[in-house]
């Protein structure tokens, strides 16, 4: 099948991850991966983002498929259950709001900027080498560190399940995918 421009969005995903090692403020660009799928589902009522534009999914497909870095086994039943998918969505958003709260504390002057990237919500890695100051409030940088932590954590989880199960296993429990499908279900005029 003929390749379209959006079939190369995996390059944008790789660039995004690399830029986070150069200057953490680039992490703000990741908001596109939140707002575009939401807008497509809210306005269009489709999962067009997952279906077409998700660079991260393409990256997993490429690494696990063409590069053969996947066992291509079935994902366990519990990981595709509604309980796990919705549970992970709730957990992910709870952690997201905790990150927003920490950003707020920096904005409010109640806490100093922490130049760390937190992996898997647990492991704090010094990331000061990717921070060269900001023209704005330190809170702007704090959000960047927090958001990059979210993106890197989900990439790692996605890579692990890519290796263990099928290349795009992340798509099964991706919180954005679960949320946009939920929005589509609610908007579906033929819903029972």
């Amino acid at each position: 099948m003929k390749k379209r421009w959006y079939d190369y969005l995996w390059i944008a995903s790789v660039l995004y991850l690399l830029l986070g090692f150069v200057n953490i403020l680039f992490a703000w660009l990741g908001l596109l991966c939140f707002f575009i799928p939401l807008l497509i589902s809210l306005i269009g009522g489709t999962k067009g983002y997952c279906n077409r534009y998700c660079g991260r999914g393409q990256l997993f497909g490429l690494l696990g498929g063409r590069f053969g870095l996947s066992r291509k086994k079935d994902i366990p039943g519990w990981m595709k259950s509604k309980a796990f998918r919705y549970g992970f969505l709730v957990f992910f958003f709870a952690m997201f709001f905790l990150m927003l709260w920490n950003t707020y504390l920096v904005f409010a002057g109640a806490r100093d900027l922490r130049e760390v990237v937190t992996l898997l919500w647990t492991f704090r890695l010094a990331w000061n080498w990717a921070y060269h100051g900001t023209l704005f409030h330190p809170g702007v940088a704090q959000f960047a560190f927090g958001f990059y932590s979210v993106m890197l954590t989900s990439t790692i989880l996605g890579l692990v399940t890519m290796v263990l199960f099928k290349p795009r296993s992340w798509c099964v429990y991706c919180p954005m995918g679960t949320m946009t499908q939920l929005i589509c279900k609610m908007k579906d005029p033929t819903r029972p």
Partner: protein
Amino acid sequence: MNTGTKRRRAVVDQTACVACGCCVKACPLQAIEIVRGVTARVNEEKCVGCGRCARECPASVIGIREVEA
């Protein structure tokens, strides 16, 4: 029309489908689509049951069944 012959077809477990669209990309005949962001749906006329979508599906919710043609 029932001719007594059997054909292979992809069948989607629509309650478990995550509507990611991996199957759409895998299908060489454009015989599967995502309907309103909720689930995948197989076009019975076009599908020949090759199984590419089933192999690709990250949730493994597509099966290949024999049906009456």
